[in-house]
């Protein structure tokens, strides 16, 4: 049995080229140094993938990992992480999802699955309580996520198995294809679905009946009862349960942070028509929780009739912003329906919406014409066309084939100055944030390892005024500046600390809701649960160091791919064009100032953005130093 509780204790390695599988014990040093989930992925990928790896080639490695708390009673302990070199950004790629799949993988006996090679024909993996089988998926290929779910459950004769899969977008190597699980849960960002498609891996079915062992059995129930009570007592929890994240639409519109018409402004005139209140009133069927979730922000919605009729999972705020306001779409039923389409095809709604928003702006400016689009009118707000475009992207038809490459590559191909309107970082589209209205989000997006990404740091403490949490986590001396979203002061510190904590959260397998927003649990609570579960006896200092270690390792992964300070930037529009209206009127993102503070705190070189050797050694990352030296030589 594995030394620590919380872990299944085994890793499954799958060689898709040869059709062979191998069960290996989990390395306990790896568990102690990187915890699991995001941290585990980080280490395995650093060792196995590099600048020569083509993201869609058989040499790329795809890892799916759960953390030691995944599948336990910690509030929202339902997460798994998927990582590979990204086909969208060509650098570090990772994506996370909740659901019931990650816990089931652990009940089936595995902490992680590592896929190498490429299968000669479409296959899916069936893990039945530790027994592994690679099965033919030729008849599943070409089917969407919902159909695949039905077909595999029927084939295996068990309606309760948990499934993870790709839809047509992943099969067709759309660069922002998602990996889906439990029907509506998406590991959406950085194109992990395309990597899975390139390996001709359609799905992973799991069923498990093994224990997750607990180290401190005596006090476990008491501790969990206490954490559950703390979570439920947070006033934020009921709001989340009632509205989910869509209520952020109204809130973000109020603070001028709702990206509208490809970031022309942060205030959308139709915000209320696509917001959380309306969705709850008119379309909500039921809140739907993931495993061990007390927040239950997942929704189930239905448009009962009309052209956008559907029943299924409901969009998050990001989708409403990216496929709604960003594209000038005020028809909520169209947005709900496009989200439903993206779920079925298996596509990231952020990058899909972001790419279409870019195309729309280019169309309005005459950089893209009907000659390029095949006669489609891509004006902002044209939802009929947008629905068609979403379908065309998933199957790479006509103009959709260009957009399936993502807006960065599409802009390069179109030329004519279209590059200027690409609203993303490191080739990935921004999600639903405008850094001009919340400076910490501007910085967090610029520094995130997987390209434009609000979740890597998820610095939300200044978003709606969590002064109490700032006081607890940083100290009263940083108030009021740190809590002011338009003030760049102390945002370097905030983003750095948030990144470190966020990777710990993703490594132990819990959710950013409950840890980042609302900021209910911090290191202390996570540590108590982690020690009670695993018996590792970690101290807070060690846990914080693990966070720093993972962030620096991801940085070194990207450094090896050529990422430097010049890449930690924002689209020109956010740096130079002042926000035109609302509270942030007149504001741009003071990126350099915040970035300097951030680099200093990270011990990264101010000019190049390279970590320093001493820091890497201190974090136990000695194996990265040869790559750091090579990177320095390249520069000089």
């Amino acid at each position, binding site marked *: 049995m594995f030394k620590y509780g919380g872990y299944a204790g085994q890793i499954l390695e799958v060689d898709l080229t040869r059709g062979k599988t191998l069960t290996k014990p989990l390395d306990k040093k790896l568990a102690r140094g990187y915890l699991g989930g995001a941290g585990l992925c980080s280490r395995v990928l650093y060792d196995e993938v590099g600048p020569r790896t083509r993201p869609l080639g058989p040499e790329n490695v795809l890892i799916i990992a759960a953390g030691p708390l995944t*599948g*336990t*009673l910690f509030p929202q302990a339902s997460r798994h992480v998927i990582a590979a070199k990204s086909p969208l950004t060509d650098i570090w790629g990772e994506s996370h999802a909740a659901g*019931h799949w990650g816990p089931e993988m652990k*009940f089936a006996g595995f902490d992680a699955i590592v896929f190498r090679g490429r299968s000669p024909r479409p296959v899916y993996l069936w893990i039945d309580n530790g027994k592994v089988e690679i099965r033919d998926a030729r008849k599943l290929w070409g089917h969407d996520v919902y159909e695949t779910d039905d077909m595999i459950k029927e084939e295996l004769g068990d*309606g*309760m198995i948990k499934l993870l899969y790709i839809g047509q977008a992943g099969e067709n190597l759309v660069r922002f294809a998602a990996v889906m699980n439990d*029907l509506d849960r998406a590991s959406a960002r950085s194109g992990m679905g395309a990597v899975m498609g390139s390996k001709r891996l359609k799905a992973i079915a799991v069923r*498990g*009946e*093994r*224990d*997750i*062992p*607990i180290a401190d*059995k005596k006090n*476990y*129930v008491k501790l969990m*009862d206490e954490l*559950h009570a703390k979570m*439920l007592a947070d006033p934020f929890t009921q709001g989340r*349960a009632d509205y989910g994240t869509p209520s952020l639409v109204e809130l973000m519109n109020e603070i001028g942070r709702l990206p509208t018409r490809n970031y022309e402004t942060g205030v959308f005139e139709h915000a209320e028509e696509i917001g959380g209140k309306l969705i709850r009133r008119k379309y909500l*069927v*039921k*809140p*739907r*929780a*993931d*495993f*061990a*979730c*007390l927040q*239950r922000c*997942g929704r*189930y919605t*239905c448009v009962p009739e009309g052209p956008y009729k559907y*029943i*299924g999972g409901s969009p998050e705020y990001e989708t409403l912003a990216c496929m709604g306001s960003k594209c000038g779409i005020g028809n909520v039923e169209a947005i709900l329906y496009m989200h439903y389409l993206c779920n079925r095809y298996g596509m990231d709604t952020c990058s899909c919406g972001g790419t279409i928003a870019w195309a729309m702006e280019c169309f309005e400016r005459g950089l893209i014409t009907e000659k390029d689009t095949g006669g489609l009118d891509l004006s902002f707000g044209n939802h009929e066309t947008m629905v068609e475009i979403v379908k065309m992207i998933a199957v790479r038809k006509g103009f959709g084939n260009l957009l399936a490459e993502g807006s960065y590559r599409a802009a390069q191909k179109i030329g004519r100055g279209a590059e200027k309107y690409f609203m993303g970082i490191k080739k990935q589209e921004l999600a639903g944030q405008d850094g001009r209205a919340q400076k910490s989000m501007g910085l967090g997006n610029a520094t995130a390892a997987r390209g434009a990404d609000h979740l890597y740091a998820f610095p939300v403490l200044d978003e709606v005024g969590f002064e109490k949490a700032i006081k607890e986590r940083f100290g009263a001396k940083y108030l009021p500046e740190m809590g002011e979203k338009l003030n760049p002061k102390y945002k370097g510190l905030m983003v750095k600390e948030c990144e470190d904590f966020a990777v710990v959260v993703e490594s132990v397998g819990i959710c950013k809701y409950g840890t980042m927003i609302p900021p209910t649990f911090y290191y202390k609570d996570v540590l108590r649960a982690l020690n009670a579960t695993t018996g590792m006896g970690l101290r807070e200092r060690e846990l914080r160091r693990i966070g720093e270690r993972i962030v620096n390792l991801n940085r070194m992964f990207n450094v090896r791919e050529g990422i430097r300070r010049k890449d930690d930037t924002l689209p020109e529009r956010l740096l130079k064009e002042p926000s035109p209206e609302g509270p942030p009127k007149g504001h741009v993102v003071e990126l350099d100032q915040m970035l300097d503070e951030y680099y200093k705190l990270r011990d990264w070189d101010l000019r190049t953005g390279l970590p320093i050797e001493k820091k890497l050694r201190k974090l136990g990352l000695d194996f990265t130093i040869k790559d750091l030296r090579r990177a320095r030589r390249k520069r000089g």
Partner: protein
Amino acid sequence: MRLGVDVPYLYGDPIKCTGCRICELYCAFCHEKALNPKKARLRVVRMEPAIDKPIACRQCADPPCAKVCPTEAITRNNKVDVVILNQSKCIGCGACVEACPFGAIWLHPESKKAIKCDLCQACIKRCPTNALSVVTSEKFANQKRLDLVNRLKPIMLERIQMPRE
């Protein structure tokens, strides 16, 4: 067979239940100190569209599982109103699993002996949406009658407020 209608059992409301399965985990841990939903004495069944239904033993007044049990491991204790399963008598044949019309009894993944809800109620207070409760059919029917009659209220109010001549 027990006569009377007030048989308490664990009821899961499919409208309130969000399918988080916290009940399964607490149940398994409280009974066996192990986190393993397959060792839980209740199961949450998820099906589309948007159905999440906790299923547990209904402590039947005339339990079919007891009738078919060849070793008399299942008996009904009418004093405490619970169908009791004696693990030491159980031989793990699964006859009870076949007999139960609700799928509310199943075999333990390791011991392969039958397990089912013993009405310990550890899950009830931990349910974040209060979807679980101990009810009796009498209470249940009573509530249904009240809900139904409640719908007549507006009609009655309208009548009362009508001008009388």
